[in-house]
């Protein structure tokens, strides 16, 4: 009976651990007090509101199809390099069901994009990048992801986008 309870507990723990997304697992596993990380979480409700607010048709359709966007970033170059390595380790160790769809290894920047396709309406995407200033960005996007239309968004977004500011004290930030 004790063995049964132990097995059930382990199963439930592993299931609940697996239920956490990449960002949650990454922060829980590698986040350190003396290496601060910025974390921004945008859920389905907010994405729907944003879709209703924006006038750009392509952006609106992109927001409507998505379920969540989560961003983790680091301002410090040294910390960014450390976290970049850890993020790549985590994805290879714990997220074996993700496929690497894009990988860019340039002299000054590194980008890798991983994707898991559950069905036509549910895909999970993880982007891990280290830009030319050695700043880390981990972006996870969940929902119906159309890579072609996202690729076309670049010109539209350039005026609106900006690097996420530090959200000290915000819920979900570290």
């Amino acid at each position: 009976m004790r063995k049964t309870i132990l097995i059930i507990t382990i199963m439930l723990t592993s299931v609940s651990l697996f239920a956490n997304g990449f960002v949650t697992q990454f922060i829980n596993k590698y986040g350190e007090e003396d290496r601060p990380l910025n974390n921004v979480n945008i859920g389905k409700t907010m994405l729907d509101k944003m879709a209703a607010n924006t006038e750009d048709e392509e952006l609106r359709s992109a927001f409507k199809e998505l379920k969540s966007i989560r961003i983790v970033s680091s301002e410090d170059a040294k910390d960014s390099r450390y976290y970049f390595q850890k993020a790549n380790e985590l994805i290879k160790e714990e997220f074996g069901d993700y496929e690497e769809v894009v990988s860019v290894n340039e002299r000054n920047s590194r980008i890798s994009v991983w994707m898991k396709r559950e069905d036509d309406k549910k895909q999970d995407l993880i982007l891990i990048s280290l830009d030319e200033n050695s700043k880390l960005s981990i972006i996870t996007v969940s929902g119906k992801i159309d890579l072609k239309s996202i690729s076309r968004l670049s010109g539209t977004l350039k005026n609106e986008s900006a690097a996420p500011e530090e959200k000290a004290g915000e819920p979900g930030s570290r």
Partner: protein
Amino acid sequence: MTAKDDRHIQTLLERYWDCETTLAEEQELRDFFRGGDLPAAGKPYAPYFSYINEERSVTLSEGFNERLKEAMDKEEDRSKQYITIRIFAPLLRVAASLLLIVGLGASIFFITRQNNKPWFVETYDDPNAAIKDATYALEALSHALQTTEEASLQTIRVIDDLDIDWSAIDSLVTDEVEADSLAALSQDDDTVSRGALIPTVKMKENI
């Protein structure tokens, strides 16, 4: 008390100790010792008969029989219950197992369902504030995709500049495919002679 009575009592006592007295004689003895005027020979026995008389005066309280019967009935019911539990014990085990499985299934179902829900706290309350980060994320993704596309195109341009004779490579590939098909046919068909394999080998050597 007369001497005759005295002897009679002595005789009764002797018979009493020998367990030969009748019920009437025992009653007579008890009555005798209940009286205050006892002979010297009978005095040692007085406490004993006094005790007997006291004990006989103790009676059962009112409703004792009913209470006893009730208690006995309860005991009987309890034993019946125990038998019922014993009979249904295997069924109880099965029911407990089923309950465990159903509970586990329900837990997994709810946890899986939770998986579809966002497992985090929203950072923003205001969509206008959130849009900057959302567009930043999509921009970064878009940039990554475009960078890859550009890198692929650049690779193609570099290969184009190498001045490779593609038609010669294509013909070599076609010849190899045809030779492989011949080899496959020779393996499938026993009627093809082994000599048919020789050109295949040569062709590969030429390549």
